[in-house]
C-alpha cells in the first residue's frame, strides 16, 4: 500500500542516529517544561524555535515533535507528586494520581501514567496514519451547532462528577460558567465583567484557576497538618512499575479512552484537557466500582493519561491535513513550520513527502523513546516526595506563581491566584466539588459562543441544533450521561432490596 511505502521511507529518516538524538533531547526538554506549572508544550516549542533555524527542517521538525510529546508525558508528573497540574491536560491526573502518591503508591502512579500515555499515543499514531484524511473530513461536519451540543455533553459530566449533593455540583458549574464569561464577547465586541482592568480583556485563563485551586488550595488545606508535622514524607522508594492487578484494571480503560481522546483532539478547539476529563468521566460511569474514583483508583489515572496523549496526536491532524491548528500548541508548531519554509496543509504531503512522513515516523519513535526515558526519570522525580513538606510546599507556592507569570506576564494573575485559591479552599471545606468548576471554565465560553454563532447562521431558527446526525447523536449521549447515574443508583437500590430478601 502506498501509505506503508511512504511510512517506511519516513522511518529511514526518523531512525537516523542524529535524529534519534534530537528527538530524545526534545523529549527530555519537553518533559521538564511540561512538568512546570503554567508552561506547556507551546513554551518548549517556542524555546527551541531559534535553535531550529540552524538544524535543517527535518531535525527541527523531529525535535519539535519530541518536545510536544515530552510535554504531554511530563505534565502529569507534577499532578501526581504535588497536586499541581503542569498543564490543562494533566488536570485529570490529579484526581487519582495525587491520592495514589499520598498513599505511598507514587511509583505505580508515575509508571502507569507513562505506560498509559505511551499506549494512547502509539495507538493513535498507528490509527492516524490510515484515518487522518477521513477523520479530518468528519471533523469538518462540526459546525457551531454541533460544537454547542458537544460542549453541553461535556458539561453533563458534571452530573456524575458530583457524588451526592447535585445542588453543590451545579453551583460549582455555574460559578465556572460565570468565570468563563469574563472578557471580550467575540460575537458583539463588548467587554464583559472586566471592570476596566485591561488584563482581563482576554478573560481569565483556566490554567490560572487550576493552579490556584489545586496548588494554592492544596497548600491551604495542608497547613495544619504540615505545621504539626503530621504530613508524612515518603522515605523508601520502590521500583517504578505497576502490578499485574493494576494492569488488569487499567487495560480496558486505556484502550477505550484512546479513540475518544484521539477524536476530541482532532476537533479544533477541543483538546487534551477536554479529552482527559471526558475519558475520566466515561470510565467512572462504566466502572464496577465508581466510588473508588478520586481516592486512588489506578484506572482513574490511566484513562485520562491515555486520552490526553491520544488527543495530542489527534490535534496534529487538522494541522497537517488542512493547515488548521487544532490547539494553541499546534498553532505555535505551525508558526515554526512556516518559518522553516514549509506550508502545512494538504500540499505538505505532496510537496515534501519525505519530511511529512519522517515526521509521522518520528512520532512512533518519539513515543517509544519517551516511554523508556520516563521510567528512570520518574525514579528521580519521585525523590521530590522526600523533601520535608514544610519546605516543599513553600516551593510549590513559588513554582505556582512563576508558572502563572509565565502564562501571561501579568501580576493581575497573582491576585487572581489568591482569590481562587481561597475560593478553592473554601469549596473543599464546604464539600463543594471543584471539578465541575474547572470543566465549566474550559467549556463555558465556547458553549455560549457556539450557540450564538449557530443562531446567527440559521437566522434565528432553533432547529439547527437538531439538524444534523452529529447533533442528534450528541444530544442522545448527553441525555444518557445525565440520566445514567440516577438509573444506576435505582438499579443498585433494587438489587440491594432483592438481596436483602
Amino acid at each position, binding site marked *: 500500500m502506498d501509505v506503508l511505502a511512504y511510512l517506511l521511507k519516513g522511518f529511514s529518516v526518523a531512525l537516523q542516529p542524529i535524529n534519534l538524538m534530537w528527538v530524545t533531547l526534545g523529549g527530555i526538554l519537553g518533559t521538564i517544561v511540561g512538568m512546570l506549572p503554567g508552561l506547556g508544550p*507551546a*513554551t518548549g*516549542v*517556542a524555546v527551541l*524555535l*531559534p535553535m531550529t*533555524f540552524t538544524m535543517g527542517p527535518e531535525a527541527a521538525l523531529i525535535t519539535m515533535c519530541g518536545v510536544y510529546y515530552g510535554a504531554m508525558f511530563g505534565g502529569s508528573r507534577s499532578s501526581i507528586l504535588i497536586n499541581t497540574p503542569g498543564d490543562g491536560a494533566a488536570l485529570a491526573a490529579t484526581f487519582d494520581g495525587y491520592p495514589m502518591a499520598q498513599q505511598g503508591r507514587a511509583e505505580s502512579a508515575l509508571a502507569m501514567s507513562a505506560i498509559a500515555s505511551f499506549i494512547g499515543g502509539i495507538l493513535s499514531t498507528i490509527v492516524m496514519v490510515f484515518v487522518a484524511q477521513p477523520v479530518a473530513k468528519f*471533523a*469538518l*461536519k*462540526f*459546525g*457551531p451547532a454541533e460544537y454547542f451540543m458537544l460542549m453541553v455533553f461535556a458539561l453533563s459530566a458534571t452530573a456524575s462528577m458530583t457524588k451526592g449533593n447535585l445542588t453543590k455540583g451545579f453551583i460549582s458549574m455555574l460559578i465556572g460558567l460565570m468565570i468563563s464569561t469574563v472578557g*471580550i*464577547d*467575540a*460575537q*458583539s*465586541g463588548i*467587554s464583559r465583567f472586566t471592570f476596566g482592568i*485591561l*488584563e482581563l*480583556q*482576554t478573560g481569565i485563563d483556566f490554567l490560572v484557576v487550576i493552579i490556584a485551586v489545586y496548588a494554592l488550595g492544596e497548600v491551604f488545606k495542608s497547613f495544619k497538618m504540615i505545621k504539626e508535622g503530621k504530613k508524612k514524607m515518603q522515605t523508601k522508594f520502590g521500583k517504578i512499575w505497576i502490578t499485574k492487578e493494576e494492569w488488569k484494571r487499567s487495560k480496558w480503560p486505556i484502550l477505550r479512552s484512546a479513540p475518544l481522546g484521539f477524536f476530541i483532539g482532532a*476537533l*479544533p*478547539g477541543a483538546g487534551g484537557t477536554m479529552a482527559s476529563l471526558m475519558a475520566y468521566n466515561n470510565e467512572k460511569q462504566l466502572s464496577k466500582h465508581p466510588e473508588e474514583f478520586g481516592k486512588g483508583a489506578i484506572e482513574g489515572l490511566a484513562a485520562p493519561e491515555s486520552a490526553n496523549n491520544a488527543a495530542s496526536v489527534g490535534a496534529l491532524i*487538522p494541522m497537517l491535513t*488542512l*493547515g*488548521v*491548528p*487544532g490547539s*494553541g500548541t499546534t*498553532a*505555535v508548531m505551525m*508558526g515554526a513550520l*512556516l*518559518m522553516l*519554509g514549509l*506550508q*502545512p*496543509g*494538504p*500540499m*505538505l504531503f505532496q510537496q515534501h513527502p519525505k519530511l511529512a512522513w519522517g515526521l509521522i515516523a518520528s512520532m512512533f519513535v518519539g513515543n517509544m523513546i519517551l516511554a523508556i526515558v520516563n521510567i528512570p526519570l520518574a525514579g528521580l522525580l519521585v525523590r521530590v516526595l522526600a523533601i520535608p513538606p514544610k519546605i516543599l510546599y513553600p516551593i510549590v507556592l513559588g513554582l505556582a506563581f512563576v508558572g502563572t507569570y509565565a502564562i*501571561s*506576564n*501579568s501580576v493581575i494573575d497573582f491576585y487572581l491566584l489568591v482569590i481562587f485559591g481561597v475560593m478553592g479552599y473554601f469549596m473543599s471545606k464546604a464539600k463543594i466539588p471543584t471539578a465541575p468548576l474547572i470543566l465549566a471554565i474550559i467549556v463555558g*465560553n*465556547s458553549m455560549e*459562543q457556539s450557540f450564538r*454563532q449557530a443562531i*446567527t*447562521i440559521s*437566522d434565528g431558527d432553533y432547529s439547527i441544533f437538531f439538524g444534523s446526525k452529529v447533533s442528534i447523536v450528541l444530544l442522545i449521549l448527553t441525555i444518557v450521561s445525565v440520566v445514567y447515574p440516577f438509573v444506576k443508583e435505582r438499579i443498585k437500590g433494587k438489587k440491594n432490596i432483592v438481596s436483602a430478601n
Partner: protein
Amino acid sequence: MSLKKKILSGLLAVSLIGTTILTGCSTKDANSGNTAKASENDNYPKKAMEFIAPGGAGGGWDLTIRTVSKVLQDTKLSPVPTPVTNRPGGGGSVNLAYMQEKKGSDNIISVYSSPLLLTNLNGTTELSYKDTTPLARLIADYAVFVVRSDSKYKTINDVIDALKKDPKSVKIGGASSVGSMDHIQFLMIAKAAGITNLKDIDYISFQEGVNSQLLGGHIDVLSTGLSEVTGLIESGDMRALAQTADHRVGTGVLAEIPTCKEQGIDGTFVNWRGLFGPPEMPEYAVKFWAETIDKMVQTPEWKKACERNGWDNAYQKADEFTVFLEEVNKGYEEILSEIGMLKK
C-alpha cells in the same frame, strides 16, 4: 545534618557568586550607557535593547519582531543584543501602557499593527499611536476573502450583489471578534463597494478553527489574512475571491488572486506591521534606528525572511508612516462609527 547544611551553603555561595557575576556584567554596560548620554551619537546603543511583542509567543507580532531581531543579529547591524520579550494583553494595550511608563527611554522597540489604532477607537484604551514614536513601517499582509471551492460565489461582486439584495443572505466568518480586524477589513471593502447598511451584515467570530468552518460549509465567506490560507488556496480547497492590496502580491497561485480594485471596488485594506518606540524617544535613538532599519530592509536576509513568511515589503520611513497612520485611523473611525462601535 551537617553534610546537608554544607551542601546547601555551598549551593548558596555558588548562586550568589553566579548572580553577581552575571548581573554585574549587564550592570557594567548599563552604567556606561547612562553616563554616556552626554555624547550620545557615538555611544548609542550601549546596552541591550528590549524588543517587545505585545502578544503571546507564536503569534503574528511575535513572529515579526523575532524575525527583525534575528536579521539584525545575523547581519550584525545591531551592535547590541536585541532579546525579545512578550507582554501580551488587551489586544496590545497592556504593552502600550507599559511604554508610557518608559517615556523617554531609548532602548525599547515594539511591533504593532492595526489593533494599535482599533483598541483606541473602540474604547479599549485611551492611548493611541500618538502616544508612541513610530519608527518605520516594515511589512504588510493583506486581507483575502475566500469561499469554499464549490461555492456559488465566483467573484467578490457576486457576494456584494447578494449582500445588497439581502444582507443576511451571506454569512461572513472570521477569527477576530466583532469590531476587530477580520470584521473591519470586510466592511471597508463592502463600504467601498457601495453597501450602506453595514450593521446588518452578519459577521460571525470563531475563536478556533475558522478555516474548518468554511471548509465544512457552515459559513459562506471567510475574511482572513492572505498568509493564513495560502496552503488551502494552493490545494484548491478554497477559492480566493479578492485580496485587498492595490497590486498583485505573492507568487504562484497567490499572484493570480485579483485585487478588489481590479474588480471595480475602490478600496484597500492593509494589515501593516511596523516598529514603534516609546513616547518621546530621544532624537539620537530615533536617528540610529531609522538608519539601521533602512539598511536592514535591503539585506538579503530580510528579503528571504519576508518571502518565507509571505510578507509583502511595505517599507515606509517614519514621516510617511505617521501620515499613513493618520489616514488609516480616519478610515477605521468612519467604519466603527457606522456600526456604532466608535467610542470617543
